[in-house]
């Protein structure tokens, strides 16, 4: 893989949120506690790739997406978008980054401004970046997301649109500046099944026609399979496993991935039933145990798992796992 192909390069990314403690605790103890939402992850996204980031709630996937775009400031690590060092940018330069990288949020019922009509909402990035020619560009963007004829949507407000239409509007706004890279944070999880496919189809179209790369954040492995070329499984701020999505589902190697895959119900009554392989729920991300963070729930935990944190290593070609069993 030559380095030109890589559009996003993430190295040792960390985002720790300080835990607010009471006054008394602050007086008697100097020790600061953190929620280690993202705790040292590295990965590359290639051009035109849809890279999936999957895991249960609280695993750090959304935080990762936001830190990469510097919607949140990182604690440590490096992110490059093309040749640009994202964390070295000043506020003003960050504005330029916004032309190249955008985000689509989970809930189109929340992410659209209810007091702004569709035209103003989609045109806002053009105004901020003083690009002009708004009428034509907005019309084109709405056409691209298949809201036609675009003029009919210009002066409508979000409450007049269905969920699927709203998400199309959000996508139109995200792509109006011709970005190279989009973070899509659960873009279809709030939508009904019959609407989902059309939004995903649209994302593929943008990838094929405009060469956009995506970081696709999801909790839903079945959708990840439909959409993502490669997928990483995150657990408590770290990657447990990363490989092509098909391989991940057919041949999961990390005990956590195995448990996740076994737990997903299949829409086929003659197929296997969902299975509970591990007990318990994700523990608090404060005061993580030493060693492997999955150890307390792992059915195969060994002595070494208590002491040493496993690192993510390539165990088969293009298949990385962070587990001492490997």
């Amino acid at each position: 893989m030559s380095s030109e192909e890589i559009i996003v390069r993430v190295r040792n990314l960390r985002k720790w949120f300080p835990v607010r403690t009471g006054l008394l605790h602050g007086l008697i103890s100097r020790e600061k506690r953190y929620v280690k939402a993202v705790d040292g992850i590295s990965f590359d996204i290639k051009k035109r790739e849809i890279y999936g980031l999957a895991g249960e709630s609280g695993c750090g996937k959304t935080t990762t997406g936001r830190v990469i775009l510097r919607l949140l400031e990182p604690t440590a690590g490096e992110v490059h978008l093309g040749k640009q060092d994202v964390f070295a940018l000043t506020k003003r330069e960050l504005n330029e980054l916004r032309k190249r990288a955008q985000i689509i949020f989970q809930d189109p019922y929340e992410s659209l401004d209810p007091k702004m009509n569709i035209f103003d909402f989609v045109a806002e990035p053009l105004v901020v970046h003083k690009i002009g020619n708004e009428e034509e560009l907005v019309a084109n963007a709405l056409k691209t997301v298949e809201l036609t004829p675009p003029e009919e949507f210009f002066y409508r407000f979000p409450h007049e649109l269905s969920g699927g239409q709203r998400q199309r509007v959000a996508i139109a706004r995200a792509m109006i500046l011709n970005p190279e890279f989009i973070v899509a944070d659960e873009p279809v999880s709030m939508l009904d099944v019959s609407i989902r496919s059309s939004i995903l189809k649209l994302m593929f179209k943008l990838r094929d026609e405009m060469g956009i790369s995506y970081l696709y954040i999801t909790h839903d492995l079945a959708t990840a399979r439909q959409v993502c070329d490669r997928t990483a499984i995150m657990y408590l701020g770290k990657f447990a496993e990363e490989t092509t999505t098909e391989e991940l589902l057919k041949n999961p190697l990390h005990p956590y991935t195995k448990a996740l895959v076994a737990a997903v119900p299949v829409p086929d009554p003659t197929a296997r039933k969902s299975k509970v392989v591990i007990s318990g729920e994700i523990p608090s991300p404060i005061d993580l145990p030493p060693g492997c963070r999955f150890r307390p729930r792992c059915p195969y935990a060994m002595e070494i798992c208590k002491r040493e944190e496993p690192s993510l290593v390539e165990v088969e070609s293009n298949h990385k796992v962070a587990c001492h069993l490997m």
Partner: protein
Amino acid sequence: MLDVQNLKTYFTTRGGAVKAVDDVSLQLDKGDALGLAGESGCGKTTTALTIMHLLPSNAEVLSGKILFGDVDLLTIDEERLRKEFRWKRMSMIFQGAMNALNPVFRVGDQIRQAILTHEDIAKASAWERVEELFSLVGINPDRARDYPHEFSGGMKQRAIIAMSLACNPDLVIADEPVTALDVIVQAQILELMRSLREKLGLSMIMITHDLSVIADTCNKAAIMYAGKIVERADIVAIFKHPEHPYTQGLIANFPSISGEKKGFEPISGSPPNLISPPAGCRFHPRCPYAEEICRKEEPEIVEIKRGHFVACHPKK
């Protein structure tokens, strides 16, 4: 055991009557688990609330029968319904109920309250029942003295399931019981529901938009669209030989982690407004097979094979 016939529930709004449930029929035998599926706003929850007699004040049941055994729940008075049926013979797990536990009362006390409201027994024996229920749903009975914030999401949902079982009902209606849960916890709850059904001989109606949950737990399924049931059959027939174009579209679009990878064949358009639904078949504006008759005449639901009911003109 439960026989719902031609049920119609409309809501009065300023814009007109919303035909939320329009001529719905369902049958449930003892021990059945029926999955009621459909997209948001199709009338699944309203159907359940009508059966439970828990509709808001702007709703009206225009016609139909809800036969529970041989009693028509729509003809008996509220007092008798409350004393003999609701919670005692049928109970409901409401959507998002796990977040509606009262934070200032112990979880066990809230369940005991449900028992004491419906049964004339001593407080101490009600508490014993609470502890039994906790073991039944897989929580250590000692935790009954905890407050809701001391429970994880999965435990709260288990407690809600325990509450629905408080008076030993024959039928439990579960409205999106696993929707807000993470996949591993979801699998734990689904397993619990499967085992309870077996152990207690419960009948269940599982309301969800998630077809995989239905395939995982139910033996029958009914698909709702725009206030109507468009197809119902046993689970294998629905998933393997769906007859209604809407069911076919839903299943074709439902992603799976196994089997052949599915492409995207979206159903065009979006569900209609239920104040003025389209004439004829309500699905015809989105249907790839719509014919002249579909625009004019509403299809009746008919049994095309034994136990397989479909409401579609071309399929007749």
